[in-house]
């Protein structure tokens, strides 16, 4: 009787793959998108509180001035700016602009740099 066939292991992937600028830019686009969804939910909540409940409005305003609230605003603002910059990059690529290999790398670095500047500016502003 032949021995049972063993399942072949899958070669390592995300854990070993070196992060390159376009890969980081793409992942950051998705992460910033997720943060923006949370930010919009919070913003809708805030608008609702402005219109209806005075108590909730005061609580939300206090929360925004706490460390966690400030962090949330910081990430939300920076995400908005990064998502806009990289989103513009994706739209241009979809339209066939900047599709050379080096341009793709350069535009990813530029988008990431814009994200870093956005983080810095939001930090200073808040």
């Amino acid at each position: 009787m032949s021995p049972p066939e063993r399942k072949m292991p899958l070669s390592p992937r995300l854990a070993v793959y070196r992060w390159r600028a376009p890969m980081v830019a793409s992942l950051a686009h998705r992460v910033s998108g997720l943060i923006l969804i949370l930010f919009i939910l919070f913003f809708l909540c805030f608008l609702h509180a402005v219109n209806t409940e005075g108590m909730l409005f005061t609580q939300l305003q206090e929360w925004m001035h706490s460390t966690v609230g400030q962090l949330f605003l910081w990430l939300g603002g920076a995400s908005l700016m990064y998502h806009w910059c990289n989103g513009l990059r994706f739209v241009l690529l979809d339209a066939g602009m900047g599709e050379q290999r080096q341009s793709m790398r350069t535009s990813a670095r530029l988008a990431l740099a814009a994200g870093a500047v956005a983080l810095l500016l939001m930090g200073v502003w808040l």
Partner: protein
Amino acid sequence: MNEQVIQLDIYRYNPEKDDEPRMQHYEVPLSKKGMKLLDALNHIKWHIDGTLTFRRSCGEGVCGSDGMNINGVNGLACITPVEGLKQPVQIRPLPGMPVIRDLVVDTTHFFDQYRSVKPWLQNARPSPEQERLQSPAERAELDGMYECILCGCCTASCPSWWWNGNRFLGPAALLQADRWLKDSRDEADNERLDQLEDSFRLYRCHQIMNCMDACPKELNPTKAINDIRRRLLLRRR
């Protein structure tokens, strides 16, 4: 004079002996200027450890056999100079593929996906006496695509393919799909586009661009995928 040594950590897995894959350290003398990584692997195979298993054939970046993950990025061992690589050089099989042994992966699924795009000329008209002619401009449309050697470096670098490889065709197959869509002699554009127009088969590409970055032939599968998308958009108008 001290002999220069290259240090390598290589992924090892023998299904007959090992329960789990492991990394094994080797030291290889730097034998010549311009030495390639494949030379180092061959040195191990022939002089240090004959059990090390890897694919290779032409040794000059044409056959695409020795695609592997080198220091975290996919590439061909035969055209990767060892000088300049961070040591110890980390060598693993192409990511996201079942490992048969050591650096040899099972490429069955990869080639099944390649076959699924029908990578051959489809033209119902009778064959001419000699060949189907193309103008120089029509022939030039295939530049940047026909050079693909199907090494798998691009597909195995794509996170979308790692996670949805059963449904997403991956960069190599899509580059070939675009190659046949752009061939002026091919007449199956609509059938090809029908087969590609799918939220997973084509649109699972999220422009991560690892494929473009990894391709040892400096091709651009990301652009090819975008070209197919634009062609689909124009077809709808």
